[in-house]
């Protein structure tokens, strides 16, 4: 959903697994929708981890544990690998997450998050390990993500890190603009390129 992004301070949902692929984020059988209703995808976020094979709730999975909540998902390295399905980003946004913190993202998924106004924040392995420890010790641990200053802070320890985002995309997120708005303004340049390369 197009929304302006500035500073978010929130508790976190920890998912300390590596290589979480987009088939887990949203299984293929939920890709048959022809509309972009994020609530539908959000309801099915991590569907096969949230529910047991017999359809009952898997109480051991973190999304079903009332101890944890918030607008920030914290995941192990290589988050979002595999399929390019943007439905994974819609599911994350639809569930209510606005930030995903990990030490490494698969790059198609990272773009998909950005294109849906979810901010992927890349932190160091150390920062991530400490953050998982802080959340384990105190599920109410707050994290502040400051897009204008490009910093992420673990409020439990006070540790802060700078994260990278290109200036263009930062501007888009802070002003709720998407790439199509930009491209449509540049048709003359596209035609000029075609003229030169026909």
């Amino acid at each position: 959903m197009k929304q302006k992004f500035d500073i978010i301070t929130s508790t976190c949902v920890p998912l300390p697994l590596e290589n979480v692929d987009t088939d887990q984020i949203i299984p293929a059988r939920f890709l048959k929708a022809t509309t972009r209703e994020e609530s539908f995808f959000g309801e099915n976020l991590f569907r096969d981890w949230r529910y047991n094979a017999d359809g009952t709730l898997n109480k051991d999975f973190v999304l079903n544990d009332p101890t944890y909540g918030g607008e920030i998902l914290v995941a192990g390295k290589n988050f979002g690998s595999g399929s390019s399905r943007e439905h994974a980003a819609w599911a994350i946004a639809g569930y209510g997450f606005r930030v995903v913190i990990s030490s490494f993202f698969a790059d198609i998924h990272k773009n998909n998050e950005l294109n849906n106004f979810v901010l992927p924040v890349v932190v160091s392995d150390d920062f991530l390990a400490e953050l998982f420890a802080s959340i384990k010790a105190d599920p109410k641990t707050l994290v502040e993500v400051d897009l204008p200053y490009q910093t992420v802070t673990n409020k439990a320890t006070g540790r802060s890190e700078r994260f990278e985002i290109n200036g263009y995309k930062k501007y888009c997120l802070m002003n709720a603009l998407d790439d199509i708005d930009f491209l449509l303004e540049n048709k003359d340049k596209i035609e000029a390129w075609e003229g030169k390369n026909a």
Partner: protein
Amino acid sequence: MANTLFDKIWDKHVVQYVEDGPQQLYIDRLYCHEVTSPQAFAGMRARGLKCFRPDHIYCMPDHNTPTHDQDKPIEDPVSKAQVDTLAKNAADFGLTHFGMMNPKNGIIHVVGPERGLSLPGMTIVCGDSHTSTHGAVGAVAFGIGTSEVEMVLASQCILQQKPKSMRINIEGELAQGVTAKDVALYLMSQLTTSGATGYFVEYAGSAVRSLSMEGRLTLCNLSIEMGARGGFIAPDEVTFAYLKGREYAPKGEEWDKAVAYWKTLKSGDDAVFDKELTFQAADIEPRITYGTNPGMGIGITETVPSIETIPEAGRASYLKSLDYMGFQPGQKLLGTPVDYVFLGACTNGRIEDFRAFASIAKGRKKAPHVVAWLVPGSWMVADQIKAEGLDKVLEEAGFELRQPGCSACLAMNDDKIPAGKLAVSTSNRNFEGRQGPGARTVLASPLVAAAAAVTGVITDPRTLM
């Protein structure tokens, strides 16, 4: 300058460099399938836009299509709605559409190259991570999200950060029974599923040069499984011979002109890559996976790695994975009973894959307890199977051919592996639930799949050759 082939193709397509941002890249070819395009077309309608260059765009359903009775309406109403939506969108926006039962239909990544729609030097995108397949013809091809599909529909461009370049050399000769699939599975286990993230890979070296076009398509197809955005192979005589005469490839004088240009498409002798790796073909044996990502693979005669070899931070994921698969650290997988075998997908659904499978099946019989799904990647492949008489060989061995589509690779149609069952599959992903909720997937080459299908257990195909 870097002077890599990747730079040459990419830089030629840059329309503009956005200040402190990505690059605006011109796209020569957009492929749309039914799963990742409907929301992009809906976005176009909401903005009141027309496609900027409709003649650059080709649409076909493949993910939801059933692999039987394609002449009848699709039974699953939700799948049918998605397939029908693509047909309507193509008609409304004036795009070419190869619908079900159209002889040009098939898996988008099989059809593009075989129809000559994917050509050397092109930029090619599709809302599908296996778009890297088309890199085999010497194109810069990569998967994108649905928002990006909409960008291309609207402007024939996308905004992208330029990836770094990597060259992977495979030197020497592949041993008997070792295929392009085994090379890719080997690379994934060497690099892990994130080892090439942020890179575009050029495959080179004598073992890559001696691959057929089908083998190259398989190798490039799996680039994404080590995290790479794409992978490609510089075009050469193998490429030109494959493309010549194909329906949408240039003809006559245009062909000669095109080949002259394509011959210039190679990395310079002085090319500098951000990363370069070299492997020896002799180190690769037929491979299988044991876990729930494609990087979790071993040589077919090896054992599942012990827990001590896994870094601390990865152990929880590792044990979760083995628990799902029902395997133990240290276990040998040869001889493990197999329930299902799947031959097909954009990875291994081409004629050479069916030839390989048939070479093992010939004169043998399918193991009675194994359910085997043999799914050609396109109608063109299906016709070629018949023309070569492979259908008869397979039939005599107790196998039945199905109709083209993505099928059990991601189980969006009825071809789902039941929960708990073990499948040896020639597809590209062994993620949890990928082939159906609870399904357990072992990725392998068509030879390994055929060996499992006739013996009923995981078997080294070299013992049957």
